[in-house]
């Protein structure tokens, strides 16, 4: 099952993964792998099943069949919240932050989830210094360190997307599932995120869903193309670009 690219065992791997909704198969027999240090992009037209795939991986949807392994351990029946503690983090396409709380609190909650222990739950939140420090570090990583005290809902859209990523980072994931991080962003903000992602790819494995083709070809090490719920092709960006099937089904001559 496991494709070992770069000679390393995959951090995240699926086999025969499928999900049906009534009579419709949104995801069919998907085998996808993610290796450490890899920035793996999943692309495909609308309705290809990419979002469903992310939801299956993060645990928000249960698969109809198939396996998901995280660092070798089967997780497809594990509740979503528990997967976070095994090192799986995800960000959302539609900004899913705590709008009425401060920016710092948003990230602090993310850090607390993986850092706090049951017996210290009654400590005042302000005095749990390591958690606050981890939150501040995550904010600094995405460049929002000076916005900590602001109410999250007052941030500009681009900054909110960065906050999304900061929250995902604060839970110290090994694997990052990023669902359209660029959604609704202009070109310079996109540049900022591209730099950030390349930076993050060094220490994390990233599975990226994106529509922006230029962006994807720029940052990805590996690509998977999905059409109609199934994997059409996978390979390096150059291979994908040259692939005739992909050109026909999706790229429509852009390559």
């Amino acid at each position, binding site marked *: 099952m496991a494709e070992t690219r770069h000679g390393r065992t995959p951090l995240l791997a699926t086999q025969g993964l499928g999900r049906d909704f009534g009579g419709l198969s949104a995801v069919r027999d998907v085998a996808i792998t993610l290796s450490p240090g890899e920035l793996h992009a999943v692309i495909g037209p609308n309705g290809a099943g990419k979002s469903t795939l992310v939801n299956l991986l993060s645990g928000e949807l249960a698969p109809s069949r198939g396996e998901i392994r995280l660092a070798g351990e089967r997780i497809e029946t594990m509740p979503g919240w528990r997967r976070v503690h095994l090192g799986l983090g995800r960000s959302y396409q539609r900004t899913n932050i705590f709008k009425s*709380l401060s920016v710092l609190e948003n990230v602090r909650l993310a850090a607390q989830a993986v850092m706090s222990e049951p017996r210290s739950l*009654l400590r005042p939140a302000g005095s749990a210094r390591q958690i606050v420090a981890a939150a501040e570090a995550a904010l600094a990583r995405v460049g929002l360190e000076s916005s900590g005290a602001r109410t999250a809902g007052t941030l500009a859209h681009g900054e909110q997307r960065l906050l999304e990523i900061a929250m995902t980072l604060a839970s110290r994931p090994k694997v990052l599932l990023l669902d359209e991080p660029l959604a609704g962003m202009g070109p310079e903000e996109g540049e900022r995120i591209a730099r950030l992602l390349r930076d993050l790819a060094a220490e994390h494995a990233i599975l990226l869903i994106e529509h922006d083709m230029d962006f994807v070809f720029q940052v990805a090490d590996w690509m998977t193309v999905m059409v109609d719920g199934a994997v059409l092709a996978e390979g390096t960006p150059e291979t994908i670009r040259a692939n005739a099937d992909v050109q026909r089904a999706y790229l429509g001559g852009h390559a």
Partner: protein
Amino acid sequence: MADNDTPMLPASRAGWLGLVVGALALAALPYLAPSTYYVELGTTALIAAMLALSLQLLVGCTGLVSLGHGAFYGLAAYTVYLVTPANAGLPMWMTLPAAVLVSGAVAAVVGALSLRTKGFFFLMVTLAFGQMIFFVFHDTKLGGGTDGAYLARPLISAFGWELQLPRRQRPIGTYYVALIQLVLMYIGLALLLRSLFGRVLQGIRVNEHRMVALGYDTYRYKLAAFILAGMLAGVAGHMWAMHRGFVNPELVGWHRSAEALLMILLGGLYTLHGPILGALAWVGLGEASQLITERKLLVEGLVILVVVLVLRRGLAGLWTFARRPAEPARPPAGAPSPESGTAEGARHG
């Protein structure tokens, strides 16, 4: 840490000072009241405040709107009745833990089942469970049936020392016991809200979906809050037994639960002290309206309409009216959809 990280607690020294002044005013009441009737009325109001405060842990802090909370209150009062022998009151240090334990245990069972649902379902399920408990006391002889029963009041006691007051002063003693419990309850909840656990509850209220995605087993946290709230309602119910020495099925009726919700809304959903204000106002209003008309339900109904339609931030909101911070609309408590920028409730006061 930013100012608005625990918005339910006073944001400034002035705010805390206001609360202290309020507590002192309550402490002075027995000396200012024209007769014992008003002291007893005050105790009733303090008990209502404790019930409302206990429910606020669920509604305002965690976003769980329960219509069965009154059942834990009444259950505690009945527990006192059931453990007390026929003609002698037991000391408080025996009856209070018993009442709180029973309320907590039943809350654990009800919560474990109800929290498998959300929103409207949760509301109806808690209502149904509350009704079940009502049925137990209404249709059986367990607690004296529909007529209720008298009980020997628990004695004010602690650490082997018992407070024995002459008959005329007993209401004052009871009043202070209630006040002390209320103050301790507020302080305890304030500390809880500032703790790591309290932040999780807040996160659940604001966006439970994201909390799950961040790695929190929100069910467990909500259940803990539910049990704690049930136990605190038990403290209030126990105090009722001490105060009136009488139990009847109305104590566990769902109208009691709805009134508790109302007191929260009246006083202010967005602060911890709001429900206390709401309870005091509600009891006061009930008294005042009796001077005007016998049609109590009419007055209550109209008051509720006015409060919900007009008084968005409750009585507590009137205080902070002048210095409202520029924050975006608060997401609705108990609304089915998570905070994702689409359906924000109409509650921006």
